[in-house]
C-alpha cells in the first residue's frame, strides 16, 4: 500500500482517527492506561466481542442483522463446560462450533429461503437458543472439570501476545481477505448494495446469505469457547447478554452501513476497540459505571456522525458558504 493509498484509506475510515485521538487522550488523563499490561488486558477482554463483531459485520454487509449471537455465545459456554465433565474438551469445542454454525445456517435458511425479516427471525432464534442453553444447564453455572491446558485459550501468551488477541487478529485478517478477494465475499457486498441487481446478475443470493449467517453463528461460538476458558465455567443465563447490541454498535460506529453493501471491516474492529478502551479508561479513572453508559452512548453518536454524508455535506456547504445551509436536508439517495 503506497502512502497516498494509505491516506485515502484513512480518510475513508475516520473512525481510525477517532480511535487514535481517544487513545492519546486516555494516555494523558487515565493513569496506567498506556501500561503494556493494561493494554494487553483490554485487548484480551475485547477480542471476544471483536470476534462476534466480525461475524456481525459479514451479516450486516449483506443488509441483514443477527440478534442471536449473544445466545449462541451462551450455548457455546454451556456445551464446552458441560461436556468437559465426561469427555475430552475438544469434543465440546467441536460441538459448540457445530452448534453455532447450525444456528447460523437455520437463520440463513429462514431469512433467505422463506424471505423472512432478519430482525424477527434472529429475535426468535435468540429466544430459542438461550432457552435451549438454559435447559441443558438447568439455568445454573457449570463449573466443569476443564483441564488446565484449555485455560491457555484465554490466558496463554504467544510471543508476548495474548492467545485470544491472536485468534481475533487471524480471524479478522482471514475475513478481510475473504470479503475482498473471493467471489462469495464480493457477492456479500453486492447483495447488500442492491439485492435485485445481484439476483439479476446471476449471484446466488440465497446461498451467499446462508454462508454469511453460518459464518456469523460460527464466530459467535468461537467467542463463546474463549469466554468459557476465561471464566473457567459455562453459564446460560449471564453470558453473552446484550452482546448482539454491543456488536451491532461496534459495526455501525465503524461505518458499516446497516442497510448493507458499504463499509470496511477495519471500521468495525476500531469500533470494538473504542468500546473496550472507553470502558477500561473509565474504570481506571473511577467514573461511576452509570455515567459510563451515557458517555459511551454519546461517543457512539459522535462516531456515527463522523461517517454521516449528510452532515459532511452540511458542514462543507457552511464552510464554502456557496449556498445558504438548509437545516433540513433532502432524504438520502
Amino acid at each position, binding site marked *: 500500500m503506497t502512502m497516498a493509498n494509505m491516506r485515502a484509506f484513512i480518510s475513508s475510515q475516520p473512525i481510525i482517527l477517532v480511535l487514535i485521538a481517544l487513545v492519546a487522550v486516555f494516555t494523558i488523563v487515565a493513569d496506567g492506561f498506556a501500561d503494556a499490561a493494561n493494554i494487553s488486558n483490554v485487548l484480551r477482554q475485547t477480542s471476544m466481542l471483536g470476534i462476534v463483531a466480525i461475524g456481525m459485520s459479514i451479516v450486516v454487509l449483506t443488509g441483514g*442483522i443477527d440478534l442471536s449471537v449473544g445466545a449462541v455465545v451462551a450455548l457455546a459456554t454451556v456445551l464446552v463446560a458441560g461436556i468437559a465433565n465426561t469427555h475430552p474438551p475438544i469434543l465440546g469445542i467441536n460441538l459448540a462450533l457445530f452448534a453455532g454454525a447450525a444456528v447460523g445456517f437455520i437463520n440463513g435458511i429462514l431469512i433467505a429461503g422463506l424471505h423472512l425479516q432478519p430482525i424477527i427471525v434472529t*429475535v*426468535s432464534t435468540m429466544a430459542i437458543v438461550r432457552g435451549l442453553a438454559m435447559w441443558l444447564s438447568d439455568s445454573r453455572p457449570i463449573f466443569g472439570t476443564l483441564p488446565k491446558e484449555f485455560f491457555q485459550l484465554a490466558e496463554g501468551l504467544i510471543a508476548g501476545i495474548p492467545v485470544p488477541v491472536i485468534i481475533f487478529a487471524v480471524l479478522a485478517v482471514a475475513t478481510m481477505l475473504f470479503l475482498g478477494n473471493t467471489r462469495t465475499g464480493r457477492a456479500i457486498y453486492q447483495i447488500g448494495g442492491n439485492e435485485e441487481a445481484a439476483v439479476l446478475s446471476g449471484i446466488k443470493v440465497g446461498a451467499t446469505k446462508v454462508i454469511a449467517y453460518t459464518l456469523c453463528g460460527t464466530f459467535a461460538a468461537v467467542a463463546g469457547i474463549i469466554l468459557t476458558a476465561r471464566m473457567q465455567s459455562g453459564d446460560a443465563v449471564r453470558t453473552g447478554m446484550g452482546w448482539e447490541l454491543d456488536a451491532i454498535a461496534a459495526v455501525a460506529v465503524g461505518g458499516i452501513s446497516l442497510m448493507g453493501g458499504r463499509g470496511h471491516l477495519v471500521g468495525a474492529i476500531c469500533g470494538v476497540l473504542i468500546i473496550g478502551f472507553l470502558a477500561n479508561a473509565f474504570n481506571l479513572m473511577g467514573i461511576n459505571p452509570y455515567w459510563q453508559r451515557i458517555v459511551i452512548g454519546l461517543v457512539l453518536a459522535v462516531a456515527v456522525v463522523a461517517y454521516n454524508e449528510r452532515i459532511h455535506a452540511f458542514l462543507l456547504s457552511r464552510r464554502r458558504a456557496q449556498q445558504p445551509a438548509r437545516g433540513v436536508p433532502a432524504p438520502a439517495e
Partner: protein
Amino acid sequence: MKERLSINSNLVVLAVLLVVAGLASPYFWTIENIVNLIRVTSLIGIIAVGMNVVIISGGIDLSVGSVVALVGTLAASLATAGYPLGIVVLVPIAAALVAGLVNGSLVALLGFQPFVATLVTMTVFRGSGLVYSAGQPIYADYPAFIAFLARGTFGGVPAPAVLFFAIVLVTWYVMRFRAIGRMIYMVGANEKAAYYGGVSVWRVKLFTYVYCAALAGIAGLILTARMGSGEPGQAGVLYELDAIAAVVIGGTALQGGRGSVWGALVGALVIGVMSNLFNLLGVAPEWQNVSKGAVILAAVIMAGAGPFIGAIFARRASNG
C-alpha cells in the same frame, strides 16, 4: 387485499393459541384470568401501538424499554418527594416526549439510521435513569389516581385495558383519517416520492418518534404504578423486542408503508396469551423462551404464507 389476508393469518395464530390455552389449562377461560390477561397485554400493547406507527413510517425504536424505566424512576422519585399529582404525571410524560424528540431529531434531522440512533439513546436513556437514582430502585406510595391506572376497573374492565383500547381507537383514527396518518404511510412506502409530493418528511418522522415515546411513557406510568416502585435498571428490559415482535406478528412489514393498528392489537394479544399461559402452567423459563421464539417464528411464517396462499387462490379463480 394483501393486508387483509395477512391480518387474517395472524387472527388464525391467535385463535389457535386461545384454543390450545383453553385445552391446556382449565383456568384459562375464567373471568379472573381473562381480566388479568387483558391487564398484562395492555402494557405491551400500548408500547406496540407506538412502535407500530414508527415502523409504518419505515423506522424502528429500540429505546422504548429505557423510556419505560426512565419514566417510572422519575414518577416514583417525584411522588416520594411529595409533589402534587399533576407534576408526578406530567413531568415524566414530558421527559418521554423529550426522549422522543431526541430520537426523532437524530433520525429525521441528522440522518442517523433509526436502528443505530435508538440503540444509542437506549443506552443513554437507561443510563440517565440510573445516574438520577444512583442505580437504586425508588419505592413510592402513589396517589390514588396513579394507583387506579394500574389496579382500577371501569365496571369490571381493568383501567389499563380501557386506556389501551382508547389509544388503539385514537391511533386508528389518526392513521386512517388524519393527514398526518396518511403521510406516515406515504413516508414509509416511498420516502422520496413523499418528499417530492410535498410531504415534510422530517416532521412526519419526528412525529412518529414522539408519539411512540409518549405511549412508552404512559406504559411506564402504568408499570411503575403496578410495581409501586421505579426501577431504573430492571423495568422495561427487552420490552422493545416484545413490542417489535407484537408488531410483526400483527402483519406490519418492517420495511414500512404497510400495517394497521389492529394488527398490533392482535400481536400484543398473542404475546400476552403466551406469557399468561406460561404462568398458568408453571412453564420453566427455559421453555418459555423456546416456545416464545417458536410462536413468533410460526406467526411470521404464516404471515409470509398469507399472500402466497392468496396468490394460489387468485390463480385458481382466474383459471376457473
